[in-house]
């Protein structure tokens, strides 16, 4: 009891002992380092954006034009990207694959998390631990055997190769996250429903799921982002240009050995980042909670 009270305390005395710090001192110890951090963390994005609208002659001529600004921005790189490359196709592939693998993983994770957390079959704890360990298995040690399997199953160079392999890292993560959410739902609700004769299926769909919508959103957008960002499987299992995802396509098709189309590359990186950034900006809180939630447990 005492612990829960102290945990809640910071919300009460907002500001804490801030008044003990003088303003000039705070500027030097807090604001200056913070702004340097923000500058360094955001500069690559600025550089990406400004390069993507620079005409080619300004891109490499730092003497006549300030590199940090652009005179007469052009959409030429975007036009090239969207109409003369397979970029729209890659975007479409990435969306389909991310949505497909996210839905598949969420479905599997909801059932698994409910079974582990609430049905409490014998061995549930061990299975839960196993799921956590599965999350720690990195794609870099799985891609070679998976490529052999994908080839044998006849999935090589199809979107299904990715939709079926992405759950290897999405299912453990989503299950782990949803287990935490399900744990926070009071048992009494379920007991009442059981007394009223509800089946487990009804409990899951009518009580547990509606109450864990925030958790589902967190897990869903995080899984979507992870699949959007995935690279090594997409690089290994996809061969033909029209089946590639954005990260692989940009790197392997836009980069030609002789000439670097920096403008188009940056435009490709920018457009490829936008969907996850927009999603992120709408769900910052969910995002943060899923990231920290997975670690805290």
């Amino acid at each position: 009891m005492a612990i829960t009270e102290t945990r809640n305390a910071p919300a009460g005395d907002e500001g804490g002992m801030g008044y003990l710090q003088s303003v000039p001192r705070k500027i030097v110890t807090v604001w200056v380092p913070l702004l340097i951090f923000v500058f360094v963390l955001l500069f690559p994005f600025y550089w990406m954006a400004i390069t993507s609208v620079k005409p080619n002659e300004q891109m490499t001529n730092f003497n006549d034009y300030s590199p940090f600004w652009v005179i007469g921005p052009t959409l030429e790189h975007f036009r090239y990207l969207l109409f003369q490359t397979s970029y729209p196709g890659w975007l479409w592939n990435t969306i389909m694959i991310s949505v497909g693998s996210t839905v598949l993983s969420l479905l599997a994770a909801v059932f698994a998390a409910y079974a582990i957390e609430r049905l409490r079959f014998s061995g549930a704890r061990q299975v839960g631990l196993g799921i956590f360990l599965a999350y720690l298995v990195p794609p870099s040690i799985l891609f070679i055997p998976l490529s052999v399997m994908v080839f044998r199953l006849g999935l090589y160079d199809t979107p299904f190769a990715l939709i079926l392999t992405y759950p290897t890292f999405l299912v453990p993560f989503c299950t782990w996250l949803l287990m935490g959410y399900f744990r926070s739902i009071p048992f009494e609700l379920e007991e009442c429903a059981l007394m009223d004769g509800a089946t487990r299926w009804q409990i899951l769909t009518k009580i547990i799921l509606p109450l864990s919508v925030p958790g589902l959103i967190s897990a869903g957008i995080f899984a979507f982002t992870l699949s959007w960002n995935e690279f090594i499987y997409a690089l290994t299992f996809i061969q033909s240009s029209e089946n590639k995802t954005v990260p692989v396509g940009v790197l392997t098709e836009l980069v030609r050995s002789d000439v670097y189309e920096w403008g188009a590359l940056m435009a490709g990186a920018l457009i490829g980042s936008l969907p996850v950034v927009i999603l992120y900006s709408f769900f910052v809180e969910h995002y943060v909670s899923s990231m920290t939630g997975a670690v805290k447990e």
Partner: protein
Amino acid sequence: MAAVTTATQQEPSTVARLMESRGWLAAWFMLPAAVLLLVFLTYPLGLGVWLGFTDARIGRPGIFIGLENYQYLWEDSVFWLAVFNTLLYTTVASILKFILGLWLALLLNENLPFKSFFRAIVLLPWVVPTVLSAIAFWWIFDSQFSIISWALIELGIIDHRINFLGDPTNARASVIAANVWRGIPFVAITLLAGLQTIPQSLYEAATLDGAGRWQLFRYVTLPLLTPIIAITMTFSVLFTFTDFQLIYVLTRGGPVNATHLMATLSFQRGISGGQLGEGAAIAVAMIPFLLAAILFSYFGLQRRKWQQGGGD
């Protein structure tokens, strides 16, 4: 509610009762996840270990050759260089991520205006696909048109352009910098979540006892943050150790293998070179390191818990 009442009126058949039995139901509920993970995670893990003992190539199932792949790797200086690079990369990048991430977390934990705005933009590098931000770094590290070189020359700090990715030492430093850039937000935001659970009253009590700012950090913040530091850094170390994307984009292991990590070497030998067996062996060689990192943090965490329990 209607559905609930109809369910009670039905005669419970054997099937229905079996469906309600917890073990049976749990098995059904676990089925989708279990199938996905067993088929696409557990089986490939075993298959990878097996492939490491074969001479499989792309398009040719291999035969068992025992430890030959490992013997070959044992005498291969490039493999040992990759091991060294991986350890160097992981150690330096993790330490930097920890120090800078903790610092940023402490800054964000101050009572600032626009706090949630800062927190939101700080996380951006982690949200954006690594490959795409790595491409931006590739342009920033360009040997001729690097903006960093240009700015430093303009400021009069250096007099010639830095060859970021062409020189072994510079290339290592550059990829580590890019990795740290991407990793700081994760460390900072998770540690910030940990910091926010530390009660203000502890700081006030310590201040009344005459503790300075450093002492507050050393004797209040750090001990209470240790469990979350341990788990955050375990994740961070694992992700750094198995990193592939950043190196693949920036250097592909060059110059003269100076930035080859075990993952990139495994890809180069296994997929690009077609020697699946050898690539798998390199990947398997990563497992002991990963296990060591997990066990280290697991037992480190246990000890801390016991210490805190004993301290109270």
